[in-house]
C-alpha cells in the first residue's frame, strides 16, 4: 500500500516553475541548435493507478539517474508522472536500454503490452528534434501535459491491490503509536449504520439471474471518517490487517442481530483467520445455530498464506459445521501466479479491473482461463464489476457469479420488476 504522504515530488518548492514549463524554456533556448538532439516521452501517466504511486516513480527516476550522470541528457519529471528525456549526441542504444529497463519494470501493466518501438507503442514516443515537424509535435505533447497539471493533481486514485484496503487515501500514515487510540474508538463508535450490503448474482444456464448471496461489509472510508479522519489507515498492510481483527468483532456484533430464520439468500462476511478461532465468532456461531448454510465466510488470501495450517484448520471446521468458505483478495494478475484449486475453498473471488480490459484473447487471459478451468464449476465470483463489459469478460471465461456496481443496478432493476 502506498505511503502517499511521502510524495514523489517531496522537497519540491510548490512555487517553483513546473518541470513542464522548464522543459518548454529549454526547448525555446535550444531552438537554433537542434542538430543531434532528440526527445523521448515516457507516458507513465497512462499506467494503472497502482503503478503510478510515488514509490514506483521514485524507482523509475533512479533507473534513469544513471543516464543523467554519464550522458548529455536532461530529465524532466512531469506532474502527471510522465517523464521526458532530452538527449544530445547520445547513442540511441544507450537511451533505448534505459527506457527498456523501465518498461520491463512495468511488464504487468497493459501499457507495455504493445510491442516496443512499434507504431502502436503506447509506453514511449520518440521525437527527432532536428526535424521541425517533430519539434512541433513534441511541444504540443508537453503543452498538453502542462494543461493537465492541475487536473491530475486533484484526481483521486483508486489502486488495484489485493485485499480490502483498496482505496488510496489521504492523511498521515498509520504508525503503531496511533493504534491503541484508534482501536479504542473502534470499540466505542456506532458501526451498525456503516455496514452495507452488496448482492452477488449467479447467471444460470438460461441466462437468468438469481441472487447468490449478499456480502455484508463495513465501508472503510466511512469508518475512517468516524474513527480517524486524519489518518491513512491503509498506509501499512500489516497495521491495517491488525486493525481489521477488531473490526471483525464489531461487524459480527451487527450480523448477530440478523434473523437467520427469515433470509432469502445467504450472507457473506470478510473475517480474519484469527477471528474465526476467537470468542466473538463463537458467540456469533451460537446465534446462527442450525442456519450455518446461510453464512459464507470470506478469508483474505494473505491471511491464508501467512498460516496455511491455521487456514486448513479453520476451513475444515467451518465446512464441517455447514459454513461456506470463500477466498477473497485475488485479482486476475494473482491468478497467473498461483493456483487456488488446492485451497479447497467453496468459492474463489476475483476482482475485475482495468488490467484485463485487453479482451479475452490475450496471453494473460488464456492463463486465467486455465486456472478457472481447474476450479469446480460455478465456484468463481467476479467482483467489482462496474460495467457490462466485466460480465461478458467473465462469462467468456466460464465465470457465472458476479458482484459490483453494475450488478447492484441489475438487482435493483430486477427488484422493481418483482423478479427477485
Amino acid at each position, binding site marked *: 500500500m502506498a505511503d502517499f504522504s511521502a510524495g514523489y515530488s517531496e522537497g519540491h518548492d510548490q512555487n517553483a516553475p513546473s518541470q513542464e514549463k522548464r522543459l518548454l524554456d529549454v526547448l525555446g533556448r535550444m531552438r537554433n541548435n537542434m542538430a543531434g538532439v532528440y526527445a523521448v516521452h515516457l507516458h507513465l501517466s497512462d499506467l494503472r493507478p497502482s*503503478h503510478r504511486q510515488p514509490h514506483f516513480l521514485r524507482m523509475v527516476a533512479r533507473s534513469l539517474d544513471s543516464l543523467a550522470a554519464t550522458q548529455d541528457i536532461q530529465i524532466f519529471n512531469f506532474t502527471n508522472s510522465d517523464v521526458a528525456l532530452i538527449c544530445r549526441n547520445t547513442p540511441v542504444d544507450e537511451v533505448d536500454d534505459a527506457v527498456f529497463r523501465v518498461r520491463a519494470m512495468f511488464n*504487468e501493466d497493459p501499457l507495455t503490452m504493445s510491442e516496443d518501438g512499434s507504431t502502436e507503442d503506447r509506453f514511449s514516443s520518440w521525437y527527432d528534434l532536428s526535424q521541425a515537424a517533430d519539434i512541433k509535435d513534441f511541444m504540443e505533447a508537453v503543452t498538453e501535459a502542462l494543461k493537465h497539471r492541475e487536473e491530475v493533481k486533484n484526481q483521486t486514485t483508486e489502486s488495484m491491490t489485493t485485499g480490502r484496503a483498496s482505496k488510496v487515501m489521504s492523511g498521515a500514515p498509520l504508525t503503531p*503509536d496511533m493504534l491503541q487510540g484508534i482501536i479504542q474508538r473502534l470499540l466505542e463508535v456506532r458501526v451498525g449504520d456503516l455496514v452495507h450490503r452488496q448482492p452477488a448474482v449467479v447467471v444460470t444456464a438460461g441466462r437468468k439471474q438469481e441472487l447468490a448471496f449478499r456480502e455484508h461489509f463495513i465501508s472503510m472510508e466511512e469508518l475512517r471518517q468516524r474513527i480517524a479522519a486524519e489518518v491513512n489507515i491503509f498506509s501499512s498492510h500489516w497495521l491495517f490487517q491488525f486493525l481489521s481483527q477488531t473490526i471483525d468483532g464489531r461487524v459480527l456484533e451487527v450480523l448477530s442481530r440478523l434473523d437467520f430464520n427469515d433470509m432469502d439468500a445467504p450472507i457473506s462476511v470478510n473475517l480474519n483467520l484469527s477471528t474465526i478461532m476467537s470468542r466473538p465468532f463463537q458467540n456469533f456461531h451460537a446465534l446462527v445455530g442450525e442456519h450455518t448454510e446461510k453464512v459464507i465466510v470470506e478469508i483474505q488470501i494473505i491471511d491464508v*498464506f501467512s498460516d496455511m495450517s491455521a487456514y486448513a484448520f479453520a476451513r475444515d471446521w467451518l465446512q464441517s459445521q455447514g459454513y461456506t468458505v470463500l477466498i477473497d483478495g485475488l485479482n486476475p494478475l494473482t491468478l497467473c*501466479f498461483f493456483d487456488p484449486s488446492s485451497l479447497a475453498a467453496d468459492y474463489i473471488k476475483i476482482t475485475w479491473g482495468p488490467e484485463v480490459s485487453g479482451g479475452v484473447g490475450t496471453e494473460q487471459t488464456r492463463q486465467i482461463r486455465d486456472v478457472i478451468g481447474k476450479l469446480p464449476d460455478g465456484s468463481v465470483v467476479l467482483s467489482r464489476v462496474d460495467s457490462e463489459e466485466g460480465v461478458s469478460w467473465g462469462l467468456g471465461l466460464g465465470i457465472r457469479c458476479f458482484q459490483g456496481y453494475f450488478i447492484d443496478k441489475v438487482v435493483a432493476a430486477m427488484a422493481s420488476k418483482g423478479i427477485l
Partner: protein
Amino acid sequence: MAVRSTSTPTHMHRRTQEQLLLEYLRRLENRREGRKAVRINISSLMPGNRREHHIRAATNSFEALVSDLMGQLFELKNLDIFFIYKSEAHTRVEDTVQKVKFLFSDDPLFDEKGRSEDEFVSWYDVETGYDELIKMVRDMSEDGRTEKRPVTRSNVRASLKARQDHGDPLSPEVLSRAVKALQRTDLTSLVRRQFICGVSKKLVPEPVFSEIYISIMDLRETMMPGINLTSNRWLFQYLTESLDKRVLSLLSKTDRFSITGDISFNVNVSTLMSPEFMAFDDGISAARRGSMVLELQKIDIFADLGAFLFAREFCQEKGYRICLDGLTYQNMSMINRERLGVDYVKVMWNPELVDGGAQMRKNLRDLVQEAGRTRVILARCDNREAVDFGGSVGITMFQGHYIEHLIAEDDRRRQLLKIKHRIERDTT
C-alpha cells in the same frame, strides 16, 4: 510429523509411537530442564469427532511448533496426541491447544463446565514429573492400553508460572517502543549467519552462500525482555520492516561488519521500494550487488504482487539475485515459481514431505525439475533424513542446524588433518 528413527536403521520392525515416545523421553533424561508436555485426550471424545480429518486438523495445528524445532509430536494408538516441547513455547502451545479444543467444541465432553479442561487436556512438567511420565508411557507402550487422565494438579501452577515467565504479547504500544528502540540499538552482536551448502555423498558441505539474519530470540532478550514478539503476526511483520532497515545499514557499514563470500538476507518488498534501500544501493559497488541474494517471503509477495514484480525487475536488473523464501509442503505446488521470476526458491524441510508419500515426492521433484537443480534450497534441515530426502528428489543445496553441524565436523576433520600432516612432517 511423527518422529522417525534415523540413528538406528537396523531395527527392521516399525516401532509404535508409544515406543518412540518412550525412547524420546529416555533421551531427555539428562536434558529435561525447561521441557513440558501436553496430552490431548482425543480418545475421550465422541466417536463421531474422532475421524481422520479431525485428527489431521488437530495434529496439523502443531506443525508450526514442530517446524520451529519447539517440540516433538506423537500420535498414540488410541488417537491421543502427545506433545513434548520447550517451555519457552508454552504460550504458543496453549494457543494451539485452545484451537484444538475449539475444533471439538460441539462434543458433549464440553457441555459440563469445568469438567472439560481436566478430561480433554493434561499438562505435564517433564523436569519435575519425569519419573511419573516415564512410568505412564512405559505402561502405554507395553500393553498398548492407555491410562486414563493422569492429571497432576501441580501443572496448573506450572503453566501459570510459565505464562508469567513468558510475559506479555506484542501490543501496539510495545511495537511502537520497539520500533523506536531499534533505531538506537546496535544490532552487530545479534547478527547470525547460516550457510547454504552443497553436500557431497560423504556428507562434506560445500558453502554456496550464507544467510545473514538477526536472531529474534536474542533481539527480544536485548530490547524487550518478557515480550513475545511473534505473538501477533501482523505487528511482527511491521516490526520486520524496521528490522530490514537496520540490517541494510549494518551491511553498508563494511568497516564494522565484514562478511566474506556471497550473502543473502531477508527483506520486505516495501523495504526494496524505500529511500533506505536506494541509499544502500547507492553505497555499494556493482560487484557487491552481484554477490547478494534478497530473500522475500511469499506472504509479502502476494500482499502486493504488482509491487513485487516491479521491485524484482528493478533489483535483478541491478544485479541482485532474488530468493522466494518460506515455501512449505502445503503450498509449494500452488505457486507458479517460473512466472514469479525468482533465482532461488527455499522449501522448508518437514517430515511431512516423507509422510506425504509418492505424490509429495513427485510434487517436489517436479518443482526441482521446473526450477532447476541449482535453484532449490531445502532449509531447516535438522537431521540427516532431510538431506537424504532432498538428494532423492534432486535438491543440491541445504541449510539448517544439521548443515551447521556438518560444517563444524568438517572443520574439525581439517584441523586434525593439519595436525597429522604437521606431525608427519616433524617426524620425517
